[in-house]
């Protein structure tokens, strides 16, 4: 009887282990997604630099849930030496991602000197 219970328990445990692991929130180190934001980042990111040195970034956010989600995208820009380049572009951008849909979070470097970036996606409560 005990062996039977143990077998049932182990079968459930094995079934649990067999479930596919959830996809990573973001595999690009330049984009951080807080786990409770509920959105996934599609990669690769669209990053381009125009003829005047401004870097433009488009991040595609995917909402796998059945409800609409609102998130804030906050970009940090840095120069080549790693010093932060502050400005209006560092203000949080509110993005509404429809259920089972995608939306883009877009940011532009505040100046040609700002070439490195980091974007954080956080939930809006």
């Amino acid at each position, binding site marked *: 009887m005990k062996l039977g219970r143990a077998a049932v328990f182990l079968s459930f445990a094995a079934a649990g282990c067999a479930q596919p692991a959830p996809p990573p929130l973001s595999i690009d180190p330049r984009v951080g997604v807080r786990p409770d934001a509920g959105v996934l980042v599609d990669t690769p990111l669209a990053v381009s630099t125009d003829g*005047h040195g401004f870097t*433009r970034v488009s991040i595609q956010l995917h909402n796998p849930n059945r409800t609409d989600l609102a998130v804030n995208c906050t970009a940090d820009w840095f120069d080549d030496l790693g010093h932060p380049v502050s400005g209006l*572009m560092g203000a*949080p951008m509110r993005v509404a991602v429809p259920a089972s849909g995608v939306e883009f979070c877009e940011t532009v470097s505040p100046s040609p000197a700002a070439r490195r970036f980091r974007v954080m996606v956080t939930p809006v409560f």
Partner: protein
Amino acid sequence: MTVYFPRLFCALAFSPVLAGCASRPQPTQIISARTDQSGYGMGLDSRDFSSAAQATVQKMLTSGALDNPRGGRYIIAISNITNDTMQRIDTDQLIKKIRVQLLNSGKAAITTAISDNGAEDAMTMRVRQLRKSKEFSQRNAAGEHEMAEPDLSLSGKIIQSNNTVDNGQRVDYAFQLTLTDLHSGVAIWEGEEPLSKLGSNGTVAW
């Protein structure tokens, strides 16, 4: 004394309970724009202006409208920015953010010598009245034809419309901005940032 003791006891026992039920005032806090999770009202607040300014500057920079074919920065004059909302708004809440970012971008500079309401900084003209003053050394005197004439003009409007919906109200805002080439009078860039809010009738948008 024994008759009144239960009443006194009850009063003392319930007073903390009643005090706990009373709403406590919001303590004063410093809000950081990066971590601001406070609720939204139906009116416009600094987050709305930041979002609109940010989106506007991004579109201006990526449109190429500020790429001066002669090289260098464009000089922009601030024209009329109309507040067509039911709120008392200083339009500099929007425009100043745009100005700062455009200046930092290296693409444009704003003249304060002329605007829709005359000079934003009257000192530029006042120092020129000192050219013949014997009280001032003329070593650093501003010369004639030194002031930069603006190439572009930035004008705009903030619009609000209120509508009643099923169980509340909907307020639609639009931040409209135009860059006009002052040589030709042609608008070389136009942008509109919509913002809509849905809330209860208990909140007001003015």
